[in-house]
């Protein structure tokens, strides 16, 4: 029974680091350990890993936790002040907090090295420039929810290969027809028909949070939170000098909570912009994972690139080729006489399908209205701009 106890302790440790290890996993782990030679540490490691881990991203965290736990299981005992831990946001309960404070120092660098959706732990060395968000009242949240319901991105009705029964369908539904015919003794009285289901395509938002964009950060985060929660299949990335995937954190239904979890993940609030590098990073690490099934990409940036723009055009071209529709939302355009003079803008413009300038981004409503404007023909929206390049 000692073994079972240890497994449960270990499962609790994993849970505190934010992995979703439930009773089912613990039971499976105990079962698995009866099937292998438990005197061999490596076998135990491999067996527990096979049953307790569900994602590649969780592996480094698991390996660290395993190494620490089986070396010094006493760390697994709840550290002093554990009651306070219980109240914290799930994302903040990383391994560092889960173990005793002394152990936290040692685990920090490895966790920071692999910055991704699950193990995103900001390095202590980096100077954090956190954003403060005004508390949002219930009324504001409700208003945001209502506003986001009106969001209709261009090409939002994508026909799928699935069918639904429809009296005005365009295909005969033979199984339904035969089922109906049984009611009339096998006589087919009317043909049942069906039609393709439609559903919005996956949405990938790449949002710039550099200094020049900071005045919109509040509205944009508000928007991102609503869109991530009220729409299916949304992935959200923030970039300044580097790219962070905040999809999981944003999924928390309470916006304040979600923002609290996001801000430590993103060390480059209001810093410089390296759009090209961030997009290259996205293309390499995420594009194939999130751009499947006809995804629409929403790029939110002012296009003010700090670096050389050669890499930017290339990265934009690749991004454009790998998604179904690329929409650029540019909030810098606060006056009508805008001309795309900035280098970055000139590099991005040729590679977008829709160009949506927002002339006065003061509210979420305005942002949504802008995005919901009817779609032009592919490329038509920017041809006017392109002439002025």
């Amino acid at each position, binding site marked *: 029974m000692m073994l079972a106890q240890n497994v449960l302790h270990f499962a609790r440790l994993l849970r505190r680091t934010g992995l979703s290890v439930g009773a089912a996993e613990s039971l499976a782990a105990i079962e698995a350990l009866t099937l292998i030679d438990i005197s061999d540490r490596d076998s135990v490691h*491999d067996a527990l890993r*096979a*049953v307790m*881990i569900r994602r590649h991203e969780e592996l480094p965290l698991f390996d660290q936790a395993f190494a620490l736990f089986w070396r010094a299981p006493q760390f697994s005992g709840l550290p002093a002040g554990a009651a306070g831990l219980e109240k914290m946001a799930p994302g903040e309960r990383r391994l560092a907090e889960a173990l005793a404070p002394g152990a936290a120092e040692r685990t920090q660098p490895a966790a920071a090295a692999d910055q991704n959706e699950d193990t995103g732990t900001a390095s202590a060395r980096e100077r954090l420039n956190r954003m403060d968000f005004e508390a949002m009242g219930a009324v504001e949240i409700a208003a945001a929810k209502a506003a986001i319901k009106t969001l209709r991105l261009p090409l939002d009705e994508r026909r799928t290969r699935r069918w639904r029964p429809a009296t005005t369908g365009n295909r005969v539904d033979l199984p339904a027809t035969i089922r109906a015919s049984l009611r009339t003794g096998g006589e087919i009285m009317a043909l049942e028909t069906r039609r393709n289901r439609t559903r919005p395509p996956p949405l990938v938002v790449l949002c710039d949070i550099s200094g020049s964009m900071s005045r919109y950060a509040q509205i944009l985060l508000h928007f991102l939170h609503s869109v991530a929660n009220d729409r299916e299949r949304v992935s959200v990335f923030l970039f300044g000098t580097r790219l962070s995937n905040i999809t999981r954190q944003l999924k928390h239904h309470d916006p304040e909570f979600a923002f609290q979890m996001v801000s430590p993940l993103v060390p480059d609030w209001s810093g410089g912009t390296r759009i090209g590098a961030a997009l290259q990073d996205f293309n390499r690490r995420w594009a194939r*994972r999130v751009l499947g099934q006809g995804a629409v990409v929403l790029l939110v940036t002012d296009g003010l690139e700090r670096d050389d723009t050669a890499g930017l055009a290339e990265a934009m071209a690749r991004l454009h080729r790998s998604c179904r529709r690329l929409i650029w939302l540019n909030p810098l355009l606060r006056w009508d006489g805008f001309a795309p003079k900035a280098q970055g803008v000139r590099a991005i413009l040729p590679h977008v399908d829709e160009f949506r300038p927002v002339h006065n981004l003061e509210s979420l409503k305005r942002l949504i209205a802008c995005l919901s404007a009817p779609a032009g023909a592919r490329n038509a929206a920017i041809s006017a701009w392109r002439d002025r390049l």
Partner: protein
Amino acid sequence: MTSIAETAALLAAQGYIADRQLATTVHLALAMQRPLFLEGEPGTGKTEIAKVLAAGLGRRLVRLQCYDGLDLAASAYEWDHAGQLMAIRLSEASGRGQELAASIYSREFLLRRPLLSAIDPELPPAVLLVDELDRADEPFEAFLLELLGDFQLSIPQFGVVRAKEKPVVVLTSNRTREVHDAIRRRCLYHWVDYPDAAREAAILRIKAPGLDAKLSAEVVAFVQRVRDADIFKPPGVAETIDWALALAALDRRELSAQMVEDTLGVLLKYQDDITALQAAGLAARVAEAKSEARLAP
């Protein structure tokens, strides 16, 4: 199957060189009768595991290739509508309309697709391979849950089909989309990584048996280097094997920078990667790989 070593031996007997972690996971999947969920980059041998398991366990392999819009009719079962219509007409002619409902929804008119075939109690036990699950859409995943949890399928009008002997289930994903947690929970998970040099050399010995030993060592050393380079799609084991066979077909005994450049399309499938590698000093990499291969036994 009583130990990890035996499982590894079973895979090895079929020409699959598994690392210890994979052998453990496969062993547990077989012992606990749980589905095996394999994720990894394309060309790392995920599908191969299912084939090897089928051959090694002497089971038939039932393969379901996933795609967007894969539905019940293509994956599990379908009613033979033409046959049903015919039966309806015949029963009208003979005036036996009463038994109609039962008779047209019988086994006779049930067309078995891979999922049903894998759990059909009247067929010998199977290895079910659900290949590239990430290509299917979420509704299909939801449908798969019942099958993975209980190894049974409920068919309205017909009843529940339950496997007599549970099939060995292998799911693979290239991660072009995140597979839902509900599926992951029912499976044992393994990330199939690129092999290290020693394992890749062993794989080459089996998959390209006639290959010159020197060339083989150089090929492995070079491919391992390419994987470290800053490129979009590192070559998988499948590409290594293809490349080795291509070089053998050209009657080569050793690598040369010129030849690598000429045959790079076998290894890398993106123009950007090819140019990036050429710009990053292809000849130097070839020379390094050759000297490394010479040092290694």
